[in-house]
């Protein structure tokens, strides 16, 4: 079969010693930033974007992807031992895993999370391998209107499906779109919102925005609000290995979690939050010990962790085949491709097959490395959790400012970083999601380009988006996703009346 030939070629790239090294650096950094509060994969990749000028594309992208899925492994360690989920997708793990840790079962909780992540990551990569060529075959038929419709779908799902409020999600999205507009527009050459400031003419760097919102905003929030709260790190006592019974209770949740997580990631709907909750609910229902849920049931860690990882790998399907990022980290990965002048999508599979397949093959390799890093070496990561907050956040800010300043050697960017950091603090304080800002600023200019191309084809007739069957269908689905819940509520109210 052709897919396996391509994958084999990919392994030739991924197993080159230098790429193995980059994969290892990536997954190690990924685990570290996943474990550490205050810095996540989005910030880590953004800070390393300047390295793209020094590294070849396959090495850099393999490392960045390693950071992305490595952080999923590291994140579970923190939520089990600290009960402060770094990201919403690990809330469930934090609930059940931390309960296990409190009962002296931290070891098996960490073990089922790591092995579950490995099982899910590997199966999801196999699914990605099989599915990607199919989507590519479909996507070559897409024209600008279809891409525009898909991007609108991604915008709406990222900002409305995730998070607590549609309006606040849309606020974040539009602010991101606004940030994306700043700079010299590349089709007409017009300067937009530049105000004669040369740094703005080149546009606002994604590094500045990501680091400002996530790292600086988080530091402000932790310093001004959370410093009163003391956290307790649970100790890992006894063996970290699972008992025979633990294995028996874990393997089915791993598989079910994968089955739930992958489709959620692979659809442009994205997001790992919903599948982890679904998996938790499913395990609770199917478990022989439902009474243990809430008091440290191993199924409640195994299932959601697998769902989280499978969904993270699933996100690679729309990113690689369509160029559609559905999370903040995926958007920054897209920015990394753009640094090399590459645009993910069906064309990339044709013109840069070794690069794309090398990247996919590196997921298999990286997951094996992560299993080793997160089981025998778990003690090293627990040490990281013990770094005291003042020095941890001070260190994060030193790295953050260095990355932002170093991107283009401009002090202006440091002040911009400060302003965006304050915005991040306000967004966190008032419950606005931040991921849509990043997706909006990166995908916005691409959507604008596709919209203009479409309208050039139709000679200015906007009905082109609805009259073409595929783009029309996508837009109808988008409308249903956004308005559906509201309509259902209205109908119920009417029926009651």
């Amino acid at each position, binding site marked *: 079969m052709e897919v396996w030939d391509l994958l084999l070629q990919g392994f030739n790239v991924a197993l080159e010693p230098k790429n193995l090294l980059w994969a290892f650096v990536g997954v190690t950094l990924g685990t570290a930033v996943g474990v550490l509060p205050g810095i996540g994969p989005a910030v880590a990749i953004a800070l390393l974007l300047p390295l793209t000028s020094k590294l070849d594309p396959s090495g850099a992208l393999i490392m960045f992807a390693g950071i992305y899925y490595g952080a999923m492994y590291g994140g579970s360690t923190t939520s089990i031992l600290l009960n402060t989920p770094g990201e919403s997708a690990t809330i469930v793990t934090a609930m059940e895993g931390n309960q296990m840790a409190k009962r002296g079962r931290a070891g098996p909780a960490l073990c089922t999370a790591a092995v579950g992540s490995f099982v899910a990551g590997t199966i999801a990569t196999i699914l990605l391998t099989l599915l990607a060529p199919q989507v590519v075959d479909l996507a070559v038929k897409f024209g600008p209107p279809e891409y525009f419709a898909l991007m609108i779908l991604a915008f709406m799902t990222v900002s409305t499906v995730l998070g607590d409020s549609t309006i606040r999600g849309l606020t974040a999205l539009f602010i991101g779109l606004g940030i994306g507009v700043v700079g010299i527009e590349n089709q007409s050459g017009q300067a937009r919102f530049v105000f004669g400031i040369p740094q703005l003419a080149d546009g606002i760097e994604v590094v500045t925005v990501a680091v400002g919102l996530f790292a600086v905003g988080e530091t402000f929030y932790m310093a001004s609000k959370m410093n009163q709260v003391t956290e307790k790190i649970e100790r890992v006592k006894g063996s970290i290995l699972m008992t025979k019974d633990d294995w028996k209770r874990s393997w089915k949740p791993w598989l079910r979690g994968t089955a739930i997580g992958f489709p959620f990631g692979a659809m442009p709907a994205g997001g790992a939050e919903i599948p982890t909750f679904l998996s938790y609910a499913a395990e609770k229902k199917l478990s022989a010990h439902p009474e243990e849920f809430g008091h440290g049931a191993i199924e409640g860690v195994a299932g959601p962790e697998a769902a989280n990882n499978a969904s993270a790998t699933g996100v690679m399907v729309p990113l690689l085949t369509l160029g559609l990022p559905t999370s903040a980290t995926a958007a920054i990965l897209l920015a990394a491709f753009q640094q090399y002048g590459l645009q993910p999508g069906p064309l990339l599979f044709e013109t840069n097959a070794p690069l794309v397949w090398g990247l996919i093959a590196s997921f298999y390799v990286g997951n094996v490395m992560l299993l080793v890093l997160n089981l025998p070496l778990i003690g090293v990561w627990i040490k990281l959790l013990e770094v005291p907050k003042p020095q941890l956040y001070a260190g994060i800010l*030193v790295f953050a400012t260095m990355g932002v300043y170093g991107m283009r050697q401009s002090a202006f960017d440091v002040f911009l970083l400060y302003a965006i950091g304050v915005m991040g603090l306000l967004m966190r*304080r008032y419950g606005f999601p931040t991921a849509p800002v990043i997706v909006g600023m990166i995908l916005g200019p691409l959507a604008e380009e596709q919209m203009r191309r479409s309208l050039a084809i139709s000679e200015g007739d906007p009905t082109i988006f609805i009259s073409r069957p595929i783009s029309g269908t996508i837009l109808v689905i988008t409308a249903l996703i956004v308005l559906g819940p509201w309509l259902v509520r209205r109908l119920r109210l009417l029926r009651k009346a």
Partner: protein
Amino acid sequence: MKKIISGQLALSCGVLAFGLFFLIGSFQIPDAAGYSTVGPTHVPRAVGIGLLLIGGLLIWEVIRGGFRNHDEAAEQALTTDWLAFAWVSAGLLLYGMLIERAGFIPASVILFVCTARGFNSRRWLLNGLIAVVMAVGIFALFNYGLGLSLPKGLLKGIL
């Protein structure tokens, strides 16, 4: 009449202001549409209008008792430590002012010490020492290892 949460109201007005900014700004971009019917002004205008609409909806929510699905009480229960905020702010703003004049190492050390103080750490000497080691390490790695040059500033003669 429900109590209006002033912070939420101010923030919603900020969103309105952003919308106004983009809308007005879009009229100052020369429209060189040419043969393609959508020029560089359309998206900024849509962003402006969108933000105005959203700002209006947010104010509507605030008037009706506050943002939906947002636990304002929990946030207000955690008092904001403005002194901590000021320390971290000072660190970042000083960094911006000093990075090109004093150089990477002094700017980073000041940022580190100020941020740590923001988190209530008063071990100035220890923090300063960690900061110096870290800044020198990063400087060496980037300038000599990766060839990305960071400003030497005051230490020009030594480094």
